[in-house]
């Protein structure tokens, strides 16, 4: 059983920094990893980003005053890491005939660490056709089951904008899957 985030933050401020950090990693590593993995698709990249994310947390843990929840803060750091990574990868691929969507689709087909059947692969590839931020919203809602209020806090946007974004994402994915099925 993991301790409450507030207890972890309290430990940081009572000279138990390393122990608090260890608890924080144990508690949040899996959710953050899956959040990153769904955005960057490749396990090795998700692993690198998760490490970077926790290194940033380690460096700034003392400055965290608890204005937002620890969980929201971590999610925000991970989201920024993922978006920056995707921008960098796109810049690297500028000279290549393939775009990032094609590279990721190819990886889903050949990745031994992806166990999805044909329909799941089709869904993943349809999600890849969305713009990064819409993909982010879709993943957080559809796979992570986050509430719009939580998402709004993490992504620093309004609930209305998120609902609209998710609605458009779902419609686009439905259209793409229908197009392939029939």
């Amino acid at each position, binding site marked *: 059983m993991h301790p409450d985030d507030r207890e972890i933050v309290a430990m940081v401020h009572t000279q138990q920094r390393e122990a608090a950090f260890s608890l924080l990693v144990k508690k949040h590593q899996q959710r953050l990893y899956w959040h990153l993995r769904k955005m960057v698709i490749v396990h090795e990249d998700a692993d690198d980003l998760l490490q970077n994310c926790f*290194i940033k947390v380690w460096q700034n843990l003392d400055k965290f005053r608890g204005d937002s929840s620890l969980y929201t803060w971590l999610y925000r750091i991970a989201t920024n890491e993922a978006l920056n990574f995707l921008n960098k990868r796109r810049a690297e691929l500028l000279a290549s005939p393939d775009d990032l969507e094609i590279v990721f689709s190819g990886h889903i087909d050949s990745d031994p*660490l992806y166990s999805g059947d044909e329909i799941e692969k089709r869904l993943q590839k349809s999600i890849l056709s969305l713009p990064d931020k819409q993909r982010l919203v879709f993943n957080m809602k559809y796979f992570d089951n986050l509430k719009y209020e939580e998402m709004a806090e993490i992504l620093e946007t309004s609930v209305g904008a998120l609902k609209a974004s998710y609605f458009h994402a*779902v419609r686009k994915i439905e259209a793409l899957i229908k197009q392939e099925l029939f």
Partner: protein
Amino acid sequence: MATDKNINNRNAFKTPEGYFDSFEGRLMQNIKGSEAGGLSRVKKSMIVPWIGMAAAFLIIALVYNFLPKQLFEREQDSRADIIQQIEQSAVEWFNEYELMEYLTNDADADLELYPDSLFFKNIKEEDIIMLTLMY
């Protein structure tokens, strides 16, 4: 998703065996390594632009100080070389005999030789005598 009943929100991605068990150990090793290695990545990223700017200013200062001096010296050197070359060349290129030969053979088409009287027409005979006496 209502499109297909077979589609669910199961996570089909997998991790290597024992990935999450070993993650914290690798992370702490990474953190300790970066701390022992000196400046953290964040501090380095803050310092690197300043070092770059300082280096740029130093290069500009060096260029401003030394390049004009070097160019000027080089220009002076080259001017002196040219003058020396011209002086030498007048002596080296032609000796008296060659000059005479040129004047008599090669340049005869264009060269007009006038009689002495033409040069001395404004000089009186007495002046000539005086000049020959003095030298």
